[in-house]
């Protein structure tokens, strides 16, 4: 596809060349395809539940001080409570961890907007409306005037991540349907599908409004100009894929031993870097997400997992490995979708710029699980 004059001299030149020729970070094998599509189907189902809950919290738990039933999506019944207590439920906490990761790392237009005077004005209006009949909350607001606006920022992230995952959920479920129809036959098809759907949704507006006492308050109006790709997808990949990810119980870091970078932008504890093997004997599964996805693994992928030596015992580890493979496909789509120049450009300077861009990404992913999935 591309014909640069010299092959890449990068230590991971195989990967650079593969990306330059339209391939993916993940090698093209039938097993990889099966794993990626299968796990993305279950991920799509789980994301569907996550985005609905995030949206519910953003819209209906707005400035609720003790949102005890925030994971119930408004359906508080005894059977559901018992199921919840018996842990027969989706781990919505995971979605919140991702939201908090985005919130902490920031980035994109959303972060900028939430620090703007316009946001503060809109947030204060909604806060005043919400506090009018609530004396304790008014007291809190008087004592700590920055507290409730910060909570509104958090609510905005709930909503933004919900909107982002809504698109992603549909994208992954559509991918699974296409695979079932025989239209997805290679990893390259997976990457192409994701890339195309990201492009399709790129300019979707990200908005957030709450209704308080029958009155609608726009927190993020469409006029703020926030869009799907630049203001949610890219910050999400930066925060969750690269910088941090709530793989609790997998690795312990000691900041005092300088195992944590002093610079937030250098963090590399994201999903693509996470160790799928849990540490020690605490019995903590490799993330709540893997536990959630384990309920929705398609039969063909489950059969594939059962063929391995440990069978059901290490199901969550295997899901985690497959999940990381699938996320390398999403990352490939993001890299190819954000190349400075078309991949098939004939201009040498453009090819060199593309190569530099790709090599920068490969450098950044060199310490990730990338090499272990080759």
């Amino acid at each position, binding site marked *: 596809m591309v014909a640069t004059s010299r092959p890449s001299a990068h230590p991971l030149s195989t990967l650079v060349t593969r990306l330059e020729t339209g391939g993916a970070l993940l090698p093209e094998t039938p097993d990889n395809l099966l794993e990626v599509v299968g796990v993305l189907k279950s991920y799509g189902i789980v994301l569907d539940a996550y985005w609905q809950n995030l949206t519910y919290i953003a819209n209906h738990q707005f400035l609720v001080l003790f949102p005890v039933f925030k994971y119930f999506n408004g359906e508080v019944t005894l059977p559901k409570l018992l199921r919840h207590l018996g842990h027969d439920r989706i781990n919505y906490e995971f979605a919140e961890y991702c939201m908090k990761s985005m919130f902490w790392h920031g980035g994109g237009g959303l972060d900028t907007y939430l620090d703007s005077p316009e946001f503060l004005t809109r947030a204060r209006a909604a806060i005043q409306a919400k506090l009018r009949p609530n004396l304790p909350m008014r007291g809190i607001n008087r004592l700590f005037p920055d507290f409730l606006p910060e909570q509104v920022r958090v609510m905005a992230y709930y909503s933004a991540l919900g909107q982002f995952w809504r698109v992603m959920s549909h994208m992954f479920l559509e991918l699974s349907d296409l695979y079932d129809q025989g239209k997805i036959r290679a990893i390259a098809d997976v990457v192409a599908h994701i890339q195309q759907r990201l492009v399709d949704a790129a300019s979707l507006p990200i908005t957030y409004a709450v209704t308080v006492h029958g009155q609608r308050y726009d927190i993020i109006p469409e006029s703020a100009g926030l869009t799907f790709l630049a203001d949610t997808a890219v910050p999400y990949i930066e925060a969750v894929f690269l910088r941090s990810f709530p793989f609790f119980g997998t690795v312990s870091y000691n900041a005092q031993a300088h195992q944590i970078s002093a610079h937030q932008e250098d963090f590399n504890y994201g999903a693509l870097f996470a*160790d799928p*093997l*849990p*540490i*020690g*004997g*605490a*019995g*903590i*599964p*490799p993330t709540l997400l893997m536990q959630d996805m384990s309920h929705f693994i398609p039969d063909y992928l489950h059969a594939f997992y059962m063929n*391995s*030596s*440990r*069978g059901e*015992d*290490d199901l*969550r*580890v295997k899901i985690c490995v497959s999940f990381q493979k699938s996320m390398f496909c999403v990352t490939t789509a993001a890299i190819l979708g954000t190349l400075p120049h078309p991949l098939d450009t004939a201009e040498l300077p453009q090819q060199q710029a593309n190569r530099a861009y790709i090599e920068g990404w490969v450098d950044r992913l060199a310490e990730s699980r990338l090499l272990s999935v080759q």
Partner: protein
Amino acid sequence: MLSVLIWLPLVGVIVIGCLPQAVSASRIRQIALVLTTGVLAWTGILISQFDISLSGLQFQESLPWLDTLGLTYQLGMDGLALPLVGMSSLLIWLSIYSSDANVTRPRLYYCLMLILSAGVAGAFLAQNLLLFFLFYEVELVPLYLIIAIWGGARRGYAAMKFLIYTAVSGILILAAFFGLALLSGTFSFDYDVVKHQTLPLGTQVVLLVVLLIGFGIKIPIVPLHTWLPDTHVEAPTPVSVLLAGVLLKLGTYGLLRFGLGLFPDAWQVLAPGLAVLAVINVLYGSFVAIAQTDMKKIVAYSSVGHMGYILLAIAVASPLSIAGAIAQMVSHGLISGLLFFLVGVVYAKTGTRDVTVLRGLLNPERGLPLIGTLMIAAAMASAGIPGMVGFVAEFIVYRSSILVFPIPTLLCMIGTALTAVYFLNLINRVFFGRLSDPVSNLPAIYWKDRIPSIVILALVITLGLQPNWMMRWSERTSLALGSLATEHSITSLAPLMRDGLIEIFRTPSVMPAHLSPHLPTL
């Protein structure tokens, strides 16, 4: 009744030996299991029929065999033999249960295991010196063959070393028995007959030293121990279990039965030296265990150390210490068996026992979390944590020895602490941390792999919480053996041992009425 324990496995040998070649290994294993289940059940019946108020031999059998040689088929069981027979029946059953279902040459393998079962039972039950020697030698053959055929890479070397050491042990024991028979003038090998003969103290000491070296090889006493780590490392797991759990006990059993039992006067002369040897065993075994990197060698040297506690107890030779020695024999048999089973599972699943390679095996998803948990429990038991049988045994040993041999006892207590050092070191290196990459894709583990360890651990905890269920069987025999020694004692502490310490573990059921209100029970 006792003959069943010997002849049922031998009938099994004939049955399995006559099976056609086409019979599968798993079917042969089932037959062996059925037979050893019969032995185990019969042992249970014997235990239920055993009268704990008697100190002498029970279920005695006597048949003439080669009268001209003094060899008679005399069997009997007392409180010393009963716990060891019970433990060996259980461990042999578990060893056959845990044997590889697809073992090569299964007919030979299971025949040898059954011969071993018969030999061990015969040795514990024999009441004729020559008969004991015969059974003592009989168990040597199957062990040698099993190690030589199914052992590890250096099995030839290990099996030959085991054969030479144990053969020398047998020769020395036979020499001592012949010497006793000749010098006593009776030329009898009947235990009850020779027991009541009198010999000059010097002669007794010489014969006892010969016996001590003979049984010392089997125990093993440092520096006669070098065969043990090599044999353990090369032996298959079931044999390691039996070696540590049962066969080493033949040495301490022999010392008690034939050393202390036949030469109580000489025993008093050699006892201080034996206590020193006990300390050397404990400290040497523990320090060398700390330096090992092979899990099996760590457990093997741990065995060397823990056999030192038994030596210390039998050096004291008071009723309480004899009870402690028997308890420690049972305790060590169970705990070392448990440790070898667990190491065997780790080796079978990971292909290595090297603590520098293994790491993170407690990993809940891809490691061996239950095996790791059991290993932690086994290490706790071995280190004498209260609530487990190891604590009971070591406490009784120390309680009985502290006044007689205070310095050796304190030094042995250091050995107990060192047990925690090498086992915690092992656990820390092998089971904690991130699962090392070479073993990050282990094969599945099945309940069959776990059950033997769980059964033994259940016993270790049960007997730790309710030690009287273990002690009551050997109470009267301990009293008799200990009294035998104290009556011949040349130490001024004898009356205290007889009248003071003994009551510490007396139970109301067999205690003199005038003492019972004042004495605690275990």
